[in-house]
């Protein structure tokens, strides 16, 4: 189908508008983080910074607890991501391939987990963690983050598995590969984009999680960025420069993650298998 010039124009115009809506706030935050305080609070905001300073970053890294929060967040998010992937993969495979009673009913209900807002389970979970002595421990956050990321991750992983022709697995079975080998040697390489998607989803969910992190973690030294940061900026008055520098620094690990797993997002992995 060929688009007319007018259609193309409105399509690209629309895309540009949406892109601007998404990119502008980011640009404003990032560019603001290197502006001098007086330029930040100028009545008419500048799109292109007229001043340049690293004072906000210096303050963030040297005079605030941000580095501690950053490390806490990286630890919690990395473990949450790793466990989510490690658990979602075999679970999705079981839902996809293994026969057991109640499989379909269970599969249909796992997404129901999202029908309950986090607050509903906050108090019972708090009680539970208090009993086993996990309050104020990053382990509690990892458990909560993994539990919340899993249903969707399983669901997403299963739909990636469903794109792999059955005969490939059957050929591997005939070739003598045990189930774990099939999963690791055959299926995992073929659903690399799915694994990458799940990993990013789990990392970002954990990275931005506020509610549980604010309740289950008590001591300042164990806070993650979203909670700890809220403390930094609100203690006496809002330090806009610090806020923007912190927001910018918080994006960096996510960007690095995207760069690392981005190369897994390749299409056509199963080309040549069955056609």
């Amino acid at each position, binding site marked *: 189908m060929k688009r007319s010039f007018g259609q193309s124009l409105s399509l690209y115009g629309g895309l540009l508008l949406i892109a601007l809506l998404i990119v502008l706030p980011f640009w404003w935050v990032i560019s603001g983080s290197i502006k001098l305080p007086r330029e930040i609070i100028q009545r008419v905001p500048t799109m292109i910074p007229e001043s340049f300073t690293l004072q906000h970053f210096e303050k963030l890294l040297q005079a605030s607890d941000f580095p501690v929060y950053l490390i806490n967040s990286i630890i919690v998010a990395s473990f949450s991501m790793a466990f989510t992937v490690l658990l979602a993969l075999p679970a999705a495979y079981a839902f996809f391939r293994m026969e057991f009673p109640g499989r379909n009913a269970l599969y249909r209900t796992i997404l129901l987990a999202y029908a309950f807002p986090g607050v509903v389970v906050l108090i019972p979970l708090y009680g539970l963690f208090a009993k086993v002595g996990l309050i104020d421990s990053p382990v509690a956050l990892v458990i909560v983050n993994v539990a919340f990321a899993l249903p969707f991750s399983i669901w997403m992983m299963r739909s990636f598995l469903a794109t792999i022709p059955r005969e490939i697995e*059957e050929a591997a*079975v005939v070739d003598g590969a045990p189930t774990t080998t099939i999963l690791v040697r055959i299926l995992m390489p073929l659903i690399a984009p799915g694994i990458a998607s799940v990993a990013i989803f789990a990392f970002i969910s954990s990275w931005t999680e506020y509610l549980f992190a604010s309740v289950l973690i008590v001591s300042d030294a164990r806070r993650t960025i979203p909670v700890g940061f809220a403390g930094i900026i609100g203690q006496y008055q809002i330090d806009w420069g610090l806020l923007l520098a912190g927001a910018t620094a918080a994006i960096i690990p996510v960007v690095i993650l995207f760069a690392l797993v981005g190369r897994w997002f390749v299409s056509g992995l199963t080309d040549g298998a069955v056609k």
Partner: protein
Amino acid sequence: MAGLSLQKVKKRFGETEVIGGVDLDVKDGEFVVFVGPSGCGKSTLLRMIAGLETTSDGRIEIGGRDVTGEDPAKRGIAMVFQTYALYPHMTVATNMGFPLEMAKRPKEEIDRKVAEAAKILHLEPYLQRKPRELSGGQRQRVAIGRAIVRQPGVFLFDEPLSNLDAELRVQMRIEIARLHQELGTTMIYVTHDQVEAMTLASRIVVLRAGRIEQVGAPLELYENPDNSFVAGFIGSPRMNFVPVTVVGVEGGKAMVAAPKLGLTGMAVATRGAAPKLGTAVNLGIRPEHFVAADGATSALSGKVTLVERLGGVTYAHAQLPEGGTITVESRDARSFNAGDGARFGLDGSRAFLFDQDGKRI
């Protein structure tokens, strides 16, 4: 190398019985082809032999050993799928070596056997390529190579040529025949294409709706079909069936006639009990067994509706007075013209009779 034995093998998917009690013995080194229309259970039966489907009832033996409940990998079989089922992220060499790697064979043995198989299948230049960088025929050869390296007792093929274009199909058919000669291994081959069945098989198993209709050598099925289903399935174009009446019986022959079709009386050999006089039966004549009307003792008359001239042979499609149609093969390209009335000479010695249930008389 191994023979194979199926004993009262059944398969049910829930309530539906897809394979209804199959008995079959395959001798070591035989090339057996399962044919039948789409959906008749060929793949299911093959997959049961492979162990990819469980057996609901009955017993499967490979090389004299009961493997009914055995894992596919332990049955001593190798399977080639219609869709190749290659591992797309592995090279040709890794694909072919995979079963040996799973069997924990030493690396030098894997390399040697992969090299041997690659040589047999002319895949040597492609060993380091990925499947997506190969043509369809090469991919199917890799799939066959992966089966060869295991040195299985039985090869299982499920319509391995169906995804290839016509020319390649003929080429690969010859290659598979050569492979069987070279390796001498038992092969079970599923196809819905009766030409593949006729050319490859040492024995053909004709399946219909999960049951065996007839087992025999290709020419046996062609020359001596047990029923109209087998008669219609084996041979191309299909056998013609014309309704006739038994008007006389003598000495292993029945005299049949269809006055409205211009057939006044023709003797056709029968087997078993002689049919009763006046019975309505079906006369089966293959398109290639019509003879010139001049000089033939009996003939059918009809109206030619379409003539297909292929050069070497010509097919005339004709309408019979009572509504049926027949296809007639002729070596003479000019013997029929569309729209003409014509007489088609019959040779009673090459015709068959079938009762109303399709059973050969």
